């Protein structure tokens, strides 16, 4: 009769997997959930593709230095893709999970809390890699963007993307504490991302924006991710057309790293597992 329920006292001495191992299996589960949720797929992966197609067909022009506006724009959209998968995605998803009580259920288990965040990071890394690959493939196929031709550029591409997506992820997790309920989350998050895209050199060439707008944008990560990616995909001569007449890669690294630290501190201080009790 009681094959299922053996003596609880005589439990096997088998050890529970560690936080990293559990985090990875949470990541796999998160990816399954992501892939099965149509709104996430549409918003995170399909939406940027549509924007690129529409804007790419509707607008033409020159960003100067032999670079077309579409090339400038599509590079900015790859940066926006990182913002969408890291920041927007988590800032919307986590409050929904919190309101639904999923987080409460998880903290009721012996799951190490870090496993939850590792799972989210795994999901963001995989989805952002997919998003980047799709947008990059489109950019190369339709808009004449060249893939990096030196190891140095590939390396820059790798660290800018990784540092950028890390900053966005941590900020997304931190920002998720602001929404009081899951229902409030999308309307609190989407406008922020949209405004950042307008002022950070995605839809408009950054140097063409009013100075005060540039200054606001320079405070946030998106501007620096986009600038770092331009150094990878746009010709070397274009550097002279940036605000500082160079790519400022050192500053890109510095600002993004600072946001990672700030994001991490905010996460640790503010993260809530339940709506207020």
């Amino acid at each position, binding site marked *: 009769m009681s094959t299922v329920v053996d003596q609880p006292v005589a439990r096997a001495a088998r050890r529970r997997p560690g936080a990293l191992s559990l985090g990875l299996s949470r990541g796999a589960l998160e990816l399954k959930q992501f892939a099965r949720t149509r709104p996430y797929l549409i918003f995170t992966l399909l939406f940027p593709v549509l924007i690129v197609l529409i804007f790419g067909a509707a607008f033409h022009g020159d960003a100067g230095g032999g670079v077309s506006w579409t090339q400038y724009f599509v590079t900015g959209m790859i940066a926006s893709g990182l913002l969408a998968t890291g920041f927007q995605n988590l800032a919307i998803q986590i409050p929904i999970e919190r309101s639904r009580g999923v987080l409460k259920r998880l903290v009721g288990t*012996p799951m190490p809390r870090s496993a939850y965040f590792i799972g989210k990071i795994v999901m963001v890394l995989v989805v952002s890699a997919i998003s980047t690959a799709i947008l990059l493939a489109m950019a190369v196929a339709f808009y004449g963007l060249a893939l990096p031709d030196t190891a140095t550029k590939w390396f820059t591409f790798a660290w800018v993307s990784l540092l950028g997506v890390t900053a966005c992820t941590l900020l997304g997790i931190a920002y998720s504490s602001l929404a009081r309920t899951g229902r409030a989350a999308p309307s609190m998050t989407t406008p922020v991302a949209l405004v950042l895209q307008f002022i950070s050199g995605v839809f408009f060439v950054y140097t063409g924006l009013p100075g005060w707008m540039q200054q606001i944008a320079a405070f946030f990560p998106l501007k620096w991710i986009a600038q770092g990616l331009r150094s990878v995909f746009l010709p070397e001569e274009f550097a002279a057309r940036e605000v500082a007449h160079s790519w400022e890669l050192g500053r890109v690294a510095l600002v993004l790293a600072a946001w990672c630290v700030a994001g991490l501190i905010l996460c640790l201080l503010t993260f809530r597992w339940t709506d207020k009790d």
Partner: protein
Amino acid sequence: MKTLIRIFRRERAIVDAVTENLAISVRGLRKAYGRTVAVDGLDLAIPRGEVFALLGPNGAGKTTTVEILEGFRRADGGEVRVLGTDPRNATPAWRSRVGIVLQSTGEFEELTVAEVVHHFARYYAGADDPDKVIDRVGLTEKRDARAEKLSGGQKRRLDVALGIIGRPELLFLDEPTTGFDPEARREFWGLIRDLAAAGTTILLTTHYLDEAEALADRVGVIARGRMVALATPAELGDRRNAMATVSWQGPNGPESERTNAPTAVVAALAERFGGEVPGLTVTRPTLEDVYLAMIDKNAISKEEAA
């Protein structure tokens, strides 16, 4: 001095031995939400291995109490020990000994039953076999269905599966059978009895008095955040000694008599009817009758006090 210390140590040891035998001990528990006092000086002691049912009307403070014991809510006052630990300081080791089925929880909508149960099994060192647990809660046919596609009662069974997957020493069940069909409820009772037979301590809340009667070693009735009665189901409200009602079909319609000596009444009736008494029943108040009277009395005395 030395003897004093020795005496003190012995006292301590006795106290420890007593509390060690308690899975749950609560003294003077208080919790208010703004001006609503949800739990108002509650005492509770549940020994290891007991099945304890907490009864009480909506808003009585059952969920608040249970969630404080689970470490989800902070008490405003009182002393709480669950498996020897203050649940506010819950560690993973403590969590692995405690199983929880909340009154309302989020589902993992896009995942299948099997995916969720197998995943949760990884959180516990001493986890049970996930497929056996799925079978035990009657979800084998639905193992590959997504959680969002389950019926209400099936979702609840998944909650129960996740509560017991870690083979807990102590299991909290907050209205576990809400939405179960009668057959599912009986199967669930069987599951609880097996768990109890294996030594699991169980604290459950329910609005079904038959459930409390079928499962619980002791029941506690809580009203307005206070424990108003605490007894075995058979003894609650002095039910065992309550007057019985003998009813039968008389020549002019149904008749009945309340008595302390039902056997004598039946014997007299048998003589009067010269054999079989038509429509004969002998009843004592059901747990539900006693419970309702108790809740009613409590509400009245509160009004008088106000």
